[in-house]
């Protein structure tokens, strides 16, 4: 079973899994619109159709789907990613699930509002005063000048460090890892994935892994793993395709 050929039929996307990955990596598909659970269900249904358990496919799928989930979580809660990383994995998962549920509820609420807008759209009412109504002039009661000073003090107050600056945080481009792995493979015939990315953050690792998948997809490398959780070994294929290669996703 080839994971990247897994056919998906989701609300936001229909087609093979590898196309979905490409679209996500090219920012042409909003991960937030993507029903990851639907992908999991599709994969498990596919597995169930077969008689034997395909361990390699399961492993590949797990890594891939966790990368997608992490990307999605980063997209949903960019400024909290760092703080989530400090939590124990179980607590972080719980917290993430809670926030995803909150976002999901708000999406449901937005859908309800849209339906309501349609069903109530044939009600018209006047905005503003009636044509022949008396003019309304409300005088203002005397005001305290001190309130003006208070308001300026409030506006001059230093904001704490919860700026939205984190939102500008970008994932490293996939192309960065493509270049790095290719240059590695020019020097050596194989390398150990964990050793290469061990120092990186989890998000960088996920992007690095996506780069690997993309390289494997076009036959540029082979990926070997002796056993689940064993080191992942990357070897270059003999085919010389450097010249014709163009960066597909970045």
């Amino acid at each position: 079973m080839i994971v990247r050929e897994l056919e998906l039929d989701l609300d936001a996307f229909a087609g093979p899994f590898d196309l979905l990955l490409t679209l996500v990596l090219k920012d042409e598909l909003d991960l937030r619109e993507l029903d990851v659970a639907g992908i999991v269900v599709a994969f498990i249904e596919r597995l169930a159709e077969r008689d034997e358990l395909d361990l390699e496919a399961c492993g590949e799928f797990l890594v891939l789907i966790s990368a997608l989930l992490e990307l999605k979580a980063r997209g949903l809660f960019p400024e909290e990613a760092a703080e989530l990383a400090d939590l124990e994995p179980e607590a972080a998962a719980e917290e993430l699930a809670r926030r995803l549920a909150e976002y999901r509820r708000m999406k449901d609420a937005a859908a309800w509002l849209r339906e309501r807008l349609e069903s109530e759209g044939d009600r018209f009412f006047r905005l503003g005063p009636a044509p022949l109504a008396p003019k309304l002039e409300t005088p203002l009661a005397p005001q305290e000048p001190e309130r003006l000073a208070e308001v300026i003090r409030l506006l001059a107050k230093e904001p704490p460090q919860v700026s939205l600056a984190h939102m500008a945080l970008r994932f490293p481009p996939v192309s960065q890892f493509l270049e790095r792995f290719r240059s590695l493979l020019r020097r050596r015939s194989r390398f150990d994935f964990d050793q290469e990315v061990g120092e990186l953050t989890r998000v960088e690792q996920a992007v690095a892994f996506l780069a690997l998948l993309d390289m494997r997809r076009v036959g540029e490398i082979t990926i070997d793993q002796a056993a689940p959780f064993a080191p992942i070994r990357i070897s270059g294929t003999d085919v010389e395709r450097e010249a014709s290669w163009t960066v597909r996703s970045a």
Partner: protein
Amino acid sequence: MDSPLRLIASNPLDQLARTLEALLVVASAPLTVEELAEAADDEPERVEAALGLVRERYSEARSGIVLEHVAGGWAFRSSREAAEACARLFEKPAQRNLSQAALETLAIVAYLGPCSRPDIARIRGVAADSAVANLSERGLISEAGRDDASLGGAIRYRTTPLFERVFGLESLSQLPRLDDVGESADAIRDRLHEVAEKRSA
């Protein structure tokens, strides 16, 4: 024997009902029973009863003017039957072309309000500035003070009575409860179980 017509005409609430009609046709926003009672200089209970008469007279199919209970008060609107004619003459600036981002922002403010732009960004995962500006301009949300202590004085927003009116809500409490999310998670789990059982069979 009195004719039914005579009966209506002699209803002691009839004059009050006419006064309410007059108030409602000039008002620029829905009026509460208390506001109506104060203006009509009458008892709230009698106003409630007279509103019943007005509501009966101004109802769908009977009249082009319809009395509705909306945004915490009472207001006249056009009948649904006349929607096409109204659409030819009047714009709907508050609700035309509301984007998905705007609707999600509106939902967050309606359910969690008052809340600030950082609050909204946190839930939606993207900056909310343009959606908030757009909704303010439409008059669907408005400023509700600043969140001075904790969030660097971020402005907080809440939905307006116009929001309730546009969406035909008597009050925010008419928004549906959103606890069906658990169901959809359960549904996924059930599907997985189903598949797992098939496998082991």
